[in-house]
C-alpha cells in the first residue's frame, strides 16, 4: 500500500490472466504457468463478471435516463377556461361580421350572419391549426393559411380542412352573448 496525501491506495498491479478475451491460452513462461495441454474452454468467470458489470451499467443508465425522459414531458397546463364565456356584446357586432374571442386558452369565433343570427365555433382551423376569420365578402369563414373554407355552421366546404370546426352553443342574455361548450352527447 502506498500513502498519498494521507490516503492509502493499492498500487496498480497488473493482473496476469492466462487467457485472452476469446479464451485462448496466453500463458507463457514469464507468468510461471505451464501451458495446459489440449484445447481450453472459454473462462466462464470472465463472462460472468462482464455480464454483472454490463447489467450494472445498464441499470445505472436507465436509472438516470428515466427521470430525464419524464422531465421532458411537459406538465399538463391547467385549463383555466370554464365551459361558458361571455364572447361579446350585441353592440360589438354588426350583421355580416365576426370577431375572435378567448375561450379558455384557445380562440373562438363569434359570427353575426347577414340575417342577424349569432353563431359561435372554435377558431382553430382543423387543417394545421391557424386561426380562422370571417369574410364578409364571401359571407362565410375562411382560413388564410391554406385557403380553407367553412360555412356558417362550421362545416368544411372547400380547401384542405379535413373536419368541421367544433361548434358552440350561443345564448343571448340581455346585451351579453354567452358561448357554451356543447356537452358530449
Amino acid at each position, binding site marked *: 500500500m*502506498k500513502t*498519498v496525501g494521507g490516503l492509502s*491506495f493499492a*498500487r*496498480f498491479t497488473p493482473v496476469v490472466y492466462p487467457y485472452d478475451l476469446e479464451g485462448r491460452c496466453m500463458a507463457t513462461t514469464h507468468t510461471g504457468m505451464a501451458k495446459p495441454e489440449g484445447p481450453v474452454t472459454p473462462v466462464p468467470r470472465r463472462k460472468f463478471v462482464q455480464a454483472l458489470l454490463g447489467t450494472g*451499467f445498464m441499470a*445505472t443508465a436507465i*436509472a*438516470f435516463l428515466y*427521470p*430525464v425522459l*419524464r*422531465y*421532458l*414531458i*411537459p*406538465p399538463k397546463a391547467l385549463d383555466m377556461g370554464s365551459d361558458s364565456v361571455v364572447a361579446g356584446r350585441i353592440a360589438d357586432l354588426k350583421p355580416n361580421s365576426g370577431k375572435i374571442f378567448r375561450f379558455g386558452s384557445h380562440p373562438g369565433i363569434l359570427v353575426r350572419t347577414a340575417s342577424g343570427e349569432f353563431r359561435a365555433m372554435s377558431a382553430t382551423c382543423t387543417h394545421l391549426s391557424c386561426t380562422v376569420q370571417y369574410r364578409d365578402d364571401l359571407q362565410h369563414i375562411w382560413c388564410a393559411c391554406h385557403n380553407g373554407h367553412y360555412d356558417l355552421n362550421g362545416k368544411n366546404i372547400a380547401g384542405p380542412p379535413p373536419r368541421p370546426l367544433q361548434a358552440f352553443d350561443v345564448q343571448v342574455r340581455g346585451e351579453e352573448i354567452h358561448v357554451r361548450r356543447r356537452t358530449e352527447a
Partner: protein
Amino acid sequence: MAPLEKIRSWIDGRFNLNELLAPFKKKTVPRHRLTYWYFLGGITLFLFVIQVLTGILLLLYYRPGANEAFESVQYIMTQVQFGWLIRSIHSWSANLMIFTAFAHMFSVLFLKAYRKPRELTWLTGMILLFLVLGFGFSGYLLPWNTLAFFATKVGTEITGQVPIVGKPLMIFLRGGEDVTGATLTRFFGFHVAVLPGLATLLILIHLLLVQRLGISVPPKIQAEWLARPTSQREMKFFPNFMLRELMAWYVALGVLGALAAILPWDLGVKADPFVPAPAGIKPEWYFLFMFQTLKLIPSKVAGIDGEILGILSFGLVAFLWLLIPFFEREHPARTRQWIAGVALFALAYIAGMTIYGHFAQ
C-alpha cells in the same frame, strides 16, 4: 465482418480514421504512486458535461426575467416531473466541479506538472478555473431568490470598488446602476451563451495540449526513474487508463446522484429589493475565503481604503498565479521549492479562511 467493423472500415476508407486515432493508441500514462491525481482533470471534465446536459434540460422550462425567473424555477421544482432532481444535480454538480477544478489546480501545482513545455496548459487551465467561478457567480443569480440577489449585489459592488475600471465594469455587469431584472437578463446570457462558448473552446485547447505534450511525470518520480531505470512504468491510455477514468466517473455520478436525491437544493424566497438583507448572509463557499478576508481587513490600511487594498491584492495574486510556470526551472532536479511552499500556504489559507468564514458570525 461485424456491422460495427464495416462502418469503421467505411469511414476509414474515406477519412483515414486509423491514422487519426493512431496517437490515441500510442498514448501512454506514466504509472507510479501518484497516478491517482491524474484523474481529477477528467472528473472535472465529466462534471462539466453533466452541467451542459442538465443546463440544457433546465433551459426547457426556465424563463429569465425578474417577474418570471423565480416562478419558473418553482415550477420546475414542483410541477415538472423530476424537475427538483435535475435542478439539484445541476447545483450539486456545479459545486463538485468547482471543488474538483481547485483540487486539479493544486495537484498540478504540487506535482509540478506546469513546468516547461506545459506553460500554456497551465494558463488555459487557470483561465478555465476563473470561468468556472464565473459560471458559479452568474448561475447563482438565475433563480432570483433573496440570497442570490444580495450575493450579486455585493459581488458586483466589490467589482465597482476597483479604481478606474471598476465602476464602468460594475454597470456593464449589472446592466445599469442597480441589480435589477436587467442584471438577470445579462447574467443569463453570460451563463448560457458567453461562458459555455469560451469554456468549450478553452477545454478543447487544454485537451489538445495535454494530448500533444503527454502526461507530466513529477520531478521526484523522474529522479527515481533516472536512478533506477528498471522501475519506470507506464500504461496505455486506451483502454487501461480510460477504463480507470470511467470508473472514477461512475463513482462521481454515484456521489452526485446520492447528494442530489438526499439533499435537494433549496429555492429560498423570491428576491425583493425592498426587503432588508437577511442576517448571516454569506456567499457560496468558493467565494467565502475572499469574503472573509475582506471582512477582516481594517477599513483603513496606511491611508488606503482597506476594501480596495484587499481587492487589488487578490487581483495581483490571481495574476501572479497565472505566471507561476514562468518562475519555474525546467530541470527536474532544480525545481524551485518555494513554489511548493507558496502553494501549500495558499491551500492552507483558502481552506482555513473558508472554514473560518463558515463558522464566523
